């Protein structure tokens, strides 16, 4: 086999290898739909951010419109301050509310934005005023047990009276 033949086969090998890497990056991983164009920043304060992480999605009506960019603790109010980057093409009224939600029972947490009815839109650098914290499973269980305990004395005396 001549020099040309070897070069062609090696070219084919390299091409196949690069195709395999592209397949892994675009088809197996999420590089394709990860690119966000122009964005603007909006902040929100939550009493408890739960398991929210940087790069968690921000969704409205289930559609991903942005990502969490940074999470810091605001030492004035001791709330978690979350900075989100939203797609430039998507605007929200300035009385939009933000909730921390969980996808499925055990899934990742994300921010859900529910638009309000105001005429003015949230500006870049603006703040979402109405927020609802993450629901912590421990607190839910605690509340449930507390309610049970509160119910218990009402039923117990009636039982022996019978």
């Amino acid at each position, binding site marked *: 086999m001549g020099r040309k033949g070897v070069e062609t086969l090696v070219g084919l090998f390299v091409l*196949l290898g690069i195709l*395999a890497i592209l397949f892994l990056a675009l*088809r*197996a991983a999420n590089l394709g739909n990860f690119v966000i164009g122009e964005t603007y920043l909006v902040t929100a304060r939550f009493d408890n951010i739960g398991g929210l992480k940087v790069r968690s999605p921000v969704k409205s009506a289930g559609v991903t419109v942005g990502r969490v960019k940074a999470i810091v603790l605001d030492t004035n109010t001791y709330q978690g301050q979350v900075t989100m980057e939203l797609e430039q093409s998507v605007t929200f009224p300035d009385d939009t509310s933000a909730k921390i939600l969980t996808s499925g029972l055990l899934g990742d947490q994300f921010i859900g934005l529910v638009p309000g009815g105001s005429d003015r839109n949230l500006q870049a650098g603006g703040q979402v005023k109405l927020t609802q914290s993450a629901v912590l499973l421990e607190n839910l269980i605690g509340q449930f047990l507390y309610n049970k305990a509160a119910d218990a004395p009402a039923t117990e005396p009636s039982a022996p009276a019978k």
Partner: protein
Amino acid sequence: MRGADVLPRLGVGALDVLRGLGHATFFVIDLLRNSLSAVTRPFLTIAQIYAIGNRSMVIIVASGLAVGFVLALQGYYTLSRYGATASLGLVVALSLVRELGPVVTALLFAGRAGTSLTAEIGLMKAGEQLAAMEMMAVDPKSRVLAPRLLAGLISMPLLAAMFSAVGILGGYVVGVLMIGIDPGAFWSQMQNGVDAVDDVGNGIVKSFVFGVACTVVALYQGFEATPTPEGVSEATTRTVVISSLMVLGLDFVLTALMFSAPS
């Protein structure tokens, strides 16, 4: 009398190991210093990529397909207990891209390409071809070893990527076409769970490091082989043993480093 021999022997053994490591280090430094020819004379490297990469493709693709098939079957067995069979794509892709792709490719590479490198160079030495080159003022490191090193570095990540890609397709064939998992769930779970940088990128970094390790070991063993038939056969055996152990050890270190990095 025998008890008194133990300590000196231990000392000699330790010194031998140290001497070997130092020798290998100088070999690598010398090799890198003389490796410009691999770039200035690209056809030398291209011919070696053909020998190392193209010729390893069949075994890599066949093994990747087999591993993908088996991963899908075994993963389905476990996942079906938890009713999470839709995550099969994610399980197959993550285990291949993060771990099995780079490691199994490197082990196969050590067996398929590393041995042939060692034997080839060892026989060149036994046939005094390397000495003849030196007589003609041609540095065998830059003429023979450097192109092979570069070829190994280029081939390994490409082979590992092929292994993972074919393995995922194998998982698709078994999971979706044979078992009947929903193809949409198969791909979307995979795309949600696999990160292009953290998983695919780290896998490529791993395979690149393994490529360096396997090729350097194979070249060193060939170059330092005793120039007799037994010497070459011993060197070939050592190539497989040392590169396999190095790949497994490096894999643990790299995985620990990549996991401990903040995500």
